[in-house]
């Protein structure tokens, strides 16, 4: 135990270079300037699906601070170029860093002046390499991303998270959405991507976001939707979903009460 009061903000006795747990064997452990310790302002679930015209993703506009609904007008959907859209869950500061990083990337690519624009699979690959690299340094960007896009007639929808885990699917859901929304999305979308209309896609996403609003604590009934089609990226204004509560009016007590 380090009793020197000058080191009160150093957790140096956490570091054991021979610890079999690699997160404790990292020399940067305890140094919050070198090692991400924990996420703070957090976004909850992001959902994505493929439909006939392209891809669509949805997320609420809440940045939580633990249990506190701190930032209630926080857009978690971001366009990258003209044909890709990024939905972020997890730490919002890391998301902001990622936004800057991808903007820089797109600008740099533009200035090579070769008429090539990074398409969604390229952006996805780049992002997943960055995330895996950061996790390998035990300093992750604490996010789960849904990357969606539409390039030259091809739809793209992928998932990449703080560990660098990647997969592509016609339906994607982060966090608790994987438990609540994914089964509904699978049922409604899988096998029908090419014939699902925009109206149906909106209906499915709204249903899933409503269930997540009911059952996930750190959510807000203020949803944003984004679609990517041949016409480019379109991000909707935030809107609220209609919800059902009237059945709760007659409930009394927890089971033993008759009054």
């Amino acid at each position, binding site marked *: 135990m380090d009793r020197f009061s000058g080191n009160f903000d150093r957790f140096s006795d956490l570091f054991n270079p021979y610890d079999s747990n690699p997160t404790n064997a990292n020399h940067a452990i305890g140094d919050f300037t070198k090692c991400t310790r924990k996420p703070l302002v957090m976004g909850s679930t992001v959902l994505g699906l493929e439909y006939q015209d392209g891809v669509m993703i949805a997320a609420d506009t809440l940045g*939580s601070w*633990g*249990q*506190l*609904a*701190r930032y*209630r*007008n926080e857009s978690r959907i971001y366009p990258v170029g003209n044909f890709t859209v990024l939905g972020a869950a997890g730490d919002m500061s890391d998301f902001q860093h990622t936004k800057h990083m991808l903007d820089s990337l797109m600008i740099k690519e533009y200035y090579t002046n070769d008429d090539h624009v990074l398409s969604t699979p390229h952006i996805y690959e780049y992002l997943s390499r960055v995330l895996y690299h950061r996790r390998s340094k035990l300093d992750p960007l604490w996010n789960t991303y849904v990357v969606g896009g539409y390039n030259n007639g091809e739809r793209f929808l992928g998932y990449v998270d703080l560990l660098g885990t990647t997969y592509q699917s016609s339906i994607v859901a982060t966090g*608790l959405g994987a438990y609540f929304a994914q089964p509904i999305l699978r049922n409604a979308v899988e096998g029908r991507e090419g014939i699902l209309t925009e109206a149906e896609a909106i209906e499915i996403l709204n249903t899933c976001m409503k269930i997540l609003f*009911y*059952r*996930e*604590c*750190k959510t*807000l*009934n*203020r949803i944003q939707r984004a679609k990517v089609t041949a016409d480019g990226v379109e991000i909707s204004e935030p809107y*609220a979903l*209609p*919800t059902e*509560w*009237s*059945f*709760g*009016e007659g*409930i*009394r*007590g*927890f089971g*033993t*009460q008759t*009054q």
Partner: protein
Amino acid sequence: MEVGLKPGEISLGTTLIAVAFDGGVVVGADSRTSMGGSYTVNRVTDKLTYVSDRIYCCRSGSAADTQAVASIVTYYLQLYAIQHEEEPPVRVAASLFQELCYKNKDALSAGIICAGWDKHDGGSVFGIPMGGSMHKLPYATAGSGSTYIYGYCDTSFRQNMTKEETIEFVKTGVALAIGRDGSSGGCIRLAVITKDGVQRHFIPGDQVPALGVI
């Protein structure tokens, strides 16, 4: 994570308010029961629990612990009513809550507000926080959501409000807390307890004002 809850235990995250006025009390609560801070187990919970005809308790903390304690107090108040041939006073109910919460302080995670009307003292509100102390107050708040409305309550509460003003105060307080606390949500339940009875009010989730959301 909630202090005092065992892993996986279900919590009444909660916002509770109880206010005394001339002639009775207004008690109000949200309707969310959560688990692990992330999953809403019950979105239409009734946290305003009957303990006797003119005494209700508002429960926060562990759902299991508060249900058990409320059931025991209800039992003892039924016994009191028979033995004394009168309705139990609120201070007796609050005292019973205190005894249970204090004697079992190491095992319980319970933040309770006991409020009601009796013919001796009119409307009374007692806060019994974790630890088992008892505090007779003009109004009490409890639950995780209450931290977000200390400022609102400090500036908006006035003594000698009318019944209607009290109802508005409670409704607005719960709405503000629901807007900020992840562990509170759903609908607003109110109960107005006077000598004439208990009048329940219900504001469904989609009609709870979204205050301050730009």
